[in-house]
């Protein structure tokens, strides 16, 4: 079954939310992490891109498998924001295009292409939540709530 129009819409909204976060980040925020807790902001972002690439490569190794990585040697992550934004844009576009163009996902371990995309959106949100908490703990300003959540809605809520 092809990707549902509403799920495609949700994917693009999720892209917007990622862009809000990426536009908010500055170079001094990118290494923030909660001591003893694992990933830095940069590593969370690298993992978000990596997850999309991993699953996309199962649909099409040639197109998704050649996407650039944001992880470098020994799991250190890219900290150049321009590069991060570029990889996010490329990865998201390829992921959606592959989902739209796949006619037979029979070997793909998801019940549907919709489920696959929603899983990736939920995965992004999980790591966005952790990024926001890491920024807060490190004393950095947070992205505007209205900007972060607003893209999902058609009207601003008072």
């Amino acid at each position, binding site marked *: 079954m092809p990707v549902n129009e509403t799920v495609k819409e949700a994917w693009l909204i999720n892209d917007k939310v990622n862009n809000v976060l990426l536009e908010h980040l500055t170079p001094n925020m990118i290494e923030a992490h909660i001591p003893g807790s694992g990933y830095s902001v940069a590593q969370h972002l690298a993992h978000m891109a990596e997850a999309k690439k991993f699953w996309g490569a199962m649909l099409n190794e040639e197109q998704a498998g050649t996407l650039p990585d944001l992880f470098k040697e020994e799991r250190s992550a890219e900290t150049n924001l321009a590069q991060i934004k570029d990889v996010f844009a490329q990865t998201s576009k390829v992921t959606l295009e592959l989902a739209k163009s796949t006619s037979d996902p029979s070997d793909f371990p998801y019940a*549907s292409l919709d489920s696959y995309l929603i899983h990736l959106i939920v995965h992004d949100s*999980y790591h966005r939540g952790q990024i926001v908490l890491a920024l807060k703990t490190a004393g950095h300003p947070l992205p505007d709530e209205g900007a972060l959540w607003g893209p999902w809605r058609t009207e601003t809520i008072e």
Partner: protein
Amino acid sequence: MVISESVKEAWHINEGMNKVLLEYLTPEMLTVQAPSKDWSVAGYLAHLAASKKWWGTHLDELGVGSLPDLFEETTGKTIAEKDLARIKDVFEQTSQAILETVERAANKGKLPYPSIDVYLIHQMIHDGHHRGQILLALKTAGYTPPDDDDFWGGWWTDQPL
């Protein structure tokens, strides 16, 4: 029908993730806060239920509006529920009520979303955002996170190699 079958299925999978989280939690974990002194784990859970209830009332004020809360307001303070059995019960009631409400709905009513599907996906994203924060707060406090395959595995029909 205004809700797609695939989004309904994703809703159930998301419910499954919440159940894994709630089963993993112990009473002492509910009071854990991140070093930023943000909400406690119990506070996050109360917020997740409250958010579903708030948005759901835009579709059915009476039905969804009567769902129980996981917090109470007392003399200027908001106290989150710390009885895990009650939290699990309210989560289940709320999730089921929302799904039943959207299944009955002829249209999106007063919901300020492009569609019912996007509304539900947003609620799942909202859950995901705060699940991430809950588990990060717990990890920082020294707790081992739930098994990754248990937590995320509901999305797959087969475990990936």
